[in-house]
């Protein structure tokens, strides 16, 4: 009974958060709705029995990426950055021009077709077998990270090193530029 309520609350939080991210004008509000969507995602991971992935989602996304986004919004002229570009063209968030709408429409049609095909196959031949009950996943993740996926584990540290050095060089305050 409770898993239904947890699923419902998390799903509503995620979907409403995602929709509000694209409809709100103020950028800072968009970051906060993104935070709500990430919290909902952590709840969805819990209902899927992935307790460690939910905790990591909380740790990395809620504790890191959202704060970085908020800092970046502040660094680029605040949430009310000018709506029009250098050439004085005023563009509200959703208006866009005809080109945007055609692309949006085409994408929507393609995605819808794919979705319909996907769901037909799922509804037709997917019989929910006996679902595995919720087991703690940390030991299994830890063991397989060390034994099967050790290469991915080590390469991700090299990737993080590259990201750190690259971003540090790019984002380093320079003397003769405004910062």
């Amino acid at each position: 009974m409770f898993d239904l309520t947890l699923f419902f609350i998390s799903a509503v939080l995620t979907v409403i958060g995602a929709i509000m991210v694209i409809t709100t004008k103020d950028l800072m509000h968009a970051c906060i709705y993104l935070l709500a969507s990430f919290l909902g995602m952590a709840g969805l991971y819990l209902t899927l029995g992935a307790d460690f992935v939910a905790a990591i989602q909380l740790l990395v996304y809620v504790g890191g990426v959202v704060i970085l986004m908020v800092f970046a919004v502040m660094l680029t002229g605040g949430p009310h950055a000018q709506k029009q570009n250098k050439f004085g063209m005023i563009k509200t968030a959703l208006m866009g021009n005809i080109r945007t709408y055609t692309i949006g429409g085409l994408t929507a049609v393609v995605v819808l077709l794919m979705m319909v095909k996907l769901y037909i196959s799922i509804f037709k031949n997917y019989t929910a077998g006996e679902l595995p009950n919720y087991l703690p996943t940390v030991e299994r993740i830890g063991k397989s990270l060390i034994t099967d996926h050790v290469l991915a584990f080590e390469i991700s540290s090299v990737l993080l090193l590259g990201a750190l050095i690259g971003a540090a060089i790019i984002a380093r305050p320079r003397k003769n530029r405004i910062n």
Partner: protein
Amino acid sequence: MSMSNLDIYMPILMLLLLGVLLVGITVVLISKVVRPHNPNPVKEQAYECGEDPVGSAWSLFNMRFYVTGLIFIIFDVESALMFPVVAVFKSMNEIGLGGLVLIELIIFITILVAGLAYCWRKGDLDWVKSYKMSEDSKEGTGIEND
């Protein structure tokens, strides 16, 4: 309540909702009922030690706040990856594989310590930028304060 269903997460949801409702109700409802409400323009200006506020607050910001956040997220992600490996270390040690896990952990940490050393050497960590460090400062060291 064994882990067979999701009831163990019930108090978390209750506490989070309680936090939201507590603030929501007290700030919105009780303030309508109990509080005096006589807005006047002077009272509603931002507090600036007496003078009237000048300029909007959203203009000043500094790059080093972002560099701190950047290095934070890389190390946050590193510790997120290390949590499962460290949690399994003791049981692997009992079956004799402790050395293997230790070597993997040390490789992982040294690669990222190299990143930290680079940022340290290039002056990203110090708060008061001394510009002799960054490559494109031609004339002498201009210490740019916070």
